């Protein structure tokens, strides 16, 4: 079971500065989603302008299902600069891959709750780190895509774009860098040293 928590209002406002489509995932019973708080906050965002559409759907972690759900909204999505996703980390990653040329941002942080984790679909994985980094990393999770879960960039071990731990695995930071390069967003890597927080709030 996972729990998602909204990022701070300041963070979310700064992410929704350009023309934005919001996607809410009220999908599965495995994820607790803060529906009420999200609705309140999104109402304010709408009042500030810039939000061209709010889509509320489910199971966006399943790429085929997601494509179907988003089909009728594609015109709005195409004309937006940013897609802001309120879901668990897997949902954001799936969206970042299917809308590869969009700046896809996460509105939530994902924490673990003890118990069964639910169905983690296909190739995406969320380590429930509690401080979702996807907004800095082009929607590719550095916790699960990098063998050392590095959050400040590539280590010295990558060779020919592969990870030092497994020559068959793409280096996660190579993927992150190339994705940001393609989005013309390499400047997002200019953040001060990030330090992980292993002191998760008590999820009870």
């Amino acid at each position, binding site marked *: 079971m996972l729990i998602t928590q909204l990022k701070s209002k300041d963070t979310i406002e700064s992410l929704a500065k350009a023309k934005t489509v919001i996607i809410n995932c009220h999908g599965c019973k495995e994820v607790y989603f803060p529906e009420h708080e999200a609705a309140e906050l999104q109402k304010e965002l709408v009042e500030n302008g810039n939000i061209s559409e709010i889509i509320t759907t489910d199971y966006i972690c399943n790429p085929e299902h997601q494509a179907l759900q988003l089909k009728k909204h594609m015109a709005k999505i195409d004309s937006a600069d940013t897609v802001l996703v309120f879901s668990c980390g897997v949902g954001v990653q799936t969206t970042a891959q299917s809308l590869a040329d969009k700046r896809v941002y996460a509105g939530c942080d994902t924490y673990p709750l003890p118990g069964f984790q639910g169905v983690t679909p296909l190739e995406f994985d969320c380590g429930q780190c509690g401080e979702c980094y996807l907004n800095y990393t082009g929607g590719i999770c550095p916790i699960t895509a990098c063998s050392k879960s590095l*959050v*400040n*960039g*590539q280590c*010295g*071990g*990558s*060779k020919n774009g592969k990870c030092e731990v497994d020559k068959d695995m793409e280096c996660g930071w190579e993927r992150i860098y190339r994705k940001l390069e393609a989005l013309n967003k390499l400047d997002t890597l200019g953040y*001060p040293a990030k330090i992980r927080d292993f002191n998760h709030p008590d999820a009870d």
Partner: protein
Amino acid sequence: MRVTELFQRGEFVITAEVGPPKGFHVGHLMEEANNYLKGRVTAVNVTDNQSSVMRLGSLATCKALLDEGLTPICQLTCRDRNRMALQTEVLSAAMFGIENLLLLTGDHTSLGDNPQSKPVFDLDSVSLIHAVKKLEEGEDLGGNKLVGDPPKFAKGAVVSACSDSVDVQLAKMEAKVRAGAEYFQTQAVFQPEMFIKFMEKAKGFGVPVMLGVIIPKSARMASYMNANVAGINVPQEILDELNKDPEKTKAGITGVEIAARIVKECKAYCQGLHIMALGWESKVPDLLAQAGM
């Protein structure tokens, strides 16, 4: 003495690397350091469980070198210790009078000789540099005040100048500079033209860079590095050169010639030289002489 003071004076700084033994007897290491490095290099790097192979500690070896009158650079990786242990190690270094650090992420545990170990990576090179900077400001990462005067170090870091993804490496280098890195040592360079191109970009960061060199021991070793070591690419001409006269190569003469040539081609573009002798400490004097140092 901090190496940063020498860079500030515009000196070309030379360092060499030694690896602690698998065991606790440092006699041989000290002998090599005394015979071949003392008086020839400014400071001696001591690796920290290099290649994830468990060995004698970097800090203890640094202290032994310091007692012998050499200036040690203590390498510290994030693989084996969480942030508490890392900060402790940094304070312990300060207490021993060790003033030079080289801060790295470290190779993954699965590559070494205790592959069952838990890989830690609580911090990484960038956040470790940040942590040391905070200690220098009198505070730990948790925001708690240190008692007494804070320590002061020369904070070094590494970069792969000839990486096949040099732009990704430059981005990481920039993050290290932002966090407080004050000098860089590069992974071994075998392609001077790539290094010079790298320096064109790296010099913009305004931080001294030391050219990394390895004395190649054989064509086999070079091919091994090509296949397995990130950031190293030994060109075919050098492989041919190593293959040409096996006796000369075995004696180390070819390797020293190659390394000296690389130093000569690159030295005008950088601020120092870092020699990774990998057990061939005895060849360092020859290398320095041939490179005109």
